[in-house]
């Protein structure tokens, strides 16, 4: 009887312990991966051509989706916030409410989520396929570090693109809100922008910028890591790539919202 109990307890801790140990090991490897990436980002030789190419891919090609989602986010915000503000007779605050929501929260978060879906998944799949088809090994054997050639360009591209895309998202969102609030719901144009100028501080814009930079690191880190380690953990071939891509998008999205909360809680 006692033996059975001990066995049950052993199994129970094994059941809990194995995933925890695996998680810690994974986190440790991710930490080393990031440190390695940062080291190769700041040490020569630099690869400006690859960085420009990836910035074009991560940033420029994401513009359409950012413009669309930004416009609609602003328009929806105007509808929703106007509905609430009218109950208090405070329609004049529509401008600042939209601008603050976008600049502090929705801009960085939505932009990051959109880029994760569009570019992050593609990065994971591309690096994953390079990994399973031995292209990363080929770089190793040529005495070239794959991190410098494959990871760093994506990392730098994200650092450049995310803040810019966030800024564009904010501006387009504010004009989307203008379209609905001013042209449709009848708030005065002067009030919309005037009150915005009174209430939006440089501090708010800075917070949005910090978030964008933090999300750039998180997304490029997770997506590159998942691609880079395809086949090294579980599964093989095409299935491993698809699994890694899914994991990359899900983990990135959750991490974005988690980090958003953490960063936001420092600046209430």
């Amino acid at each position, binding site marked *: 009887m006692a033996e059975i109990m001990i066995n049950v307890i052993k199994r129970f801790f094994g059941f809990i312990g194995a995933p925890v140990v695996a998680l810690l090991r994974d986190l440790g490897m991710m930490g080393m991966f990031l440190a390695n990436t940062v080291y190769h980002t700041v040490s020569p030789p630099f690869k400006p051509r690859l960085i420009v190419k990836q910035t074009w891919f991560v940033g420029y090609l994401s513009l359409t989706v950012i413009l669309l989602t930004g416009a609609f986010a602003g328009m929806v915000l105007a509808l929703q916030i106007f509905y609430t503000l009218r109950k208090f007779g405070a329609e004049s605050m529509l401008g600042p409410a939209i601008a603050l929501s976008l600049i502090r929260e929705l801009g960085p978060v939505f932009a990051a989520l959109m880029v994760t879906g569009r570019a992050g998944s593609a990065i994971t799949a*591309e690096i994953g*396929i*390079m990994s399973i*088809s*031995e*292209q990363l*090994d*080929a770089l*190793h*054997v*040529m*005495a*070239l*570090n794959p991190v410098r050639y494959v990871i760093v360009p994506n990392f730098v591209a994200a650092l450049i693109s995310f803040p810019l895309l966030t800024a564009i998202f904010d501006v387009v969102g504010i004009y989307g809100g203008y379209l609905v609030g001013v042209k449709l719901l009848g708030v005065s144009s002067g009030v919309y922008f005037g009150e915005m100028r009174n209430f939006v501080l440089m501090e708010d814009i800075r917070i949005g910028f910090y978030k964008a930079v933090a999300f750039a690191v998180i997304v490029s880190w997770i997506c590159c890591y998942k691609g880079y380690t395809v086949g090294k953990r579980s599964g093989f071939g095409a299935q491993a790539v698809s699994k890694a891509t899914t994991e990359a998008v899900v983990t990135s999205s959750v991490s974005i919202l988690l980090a958003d909360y953490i960063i936001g809680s420092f600046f209430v």
Partner: protein
Amino acid sequence: MTMDKTGVLIEIRDVRKSLKGHQVLKGVNLNVYKAEILAIIGVSGGGKSVLLKHIIRLMKPDFGTITIDGKDITVLADRQLNPIREKFGMLFQSGALFDSINVYDNVAFPLRERKKMTEEQVRKKVLAVLDDVGLSGMERKYPSEMSGGMKKRVALARAIVADPEIVFFDEPTTGLDPVRKNAIHSLIKQNHRKYGYTGLIISHEIPDIFDVADRVAMLHEGRIVFEGTPEAIMSSDIPEVKAFIHCCPAAGAK
């Protein structure tokens, strides 16, 4: 290299490796001499590719040493390893061509990244090597647009373009028709004569590979069971060797 012409270039001593609880290499001992072509043969899944991955340090052994040009590469840090790897050329089993850039850029890649050459010098060299492997005029094609045999030839061009001192060929002809197979084999031979590198070939092509190789080693169940000239292996009495070489008379004819 500091060795004389008959010296040992790569020395593998008692290398053991287990993968997922299965011991793949059970103490491999092997010498590769400078400027020779050594063929490693053996059944599929017998650990040949794993052994090769150890020599280029994509894997580290559980036990044993691998010395290249007097340095034990199993303990070197990446930075110390790079000068040795710069002497390598490698033809991967899958080709491992960079599929987002075209044939020309693939072959030019090691030159652009490793050698201080002007773009004009790179161009000359790449076109010459592509001509050597019979792929003139294919520069603008992408790897995905090519057949298996052409990819292998591009991979061969990329492996030798930077004038390596040691070239590794991981099953350079597997999956090719007899004509292509012979073409690749004679390319390797010609190239070896022209550039004088040390070659290590992993192959199943018996008996064709015996025309290419100066020496043959057979890896069987994680150990080297034979090491010697192609003539010696043909007349060997070791049961595993006999079984492997004479088991399928059609193998050479296919």
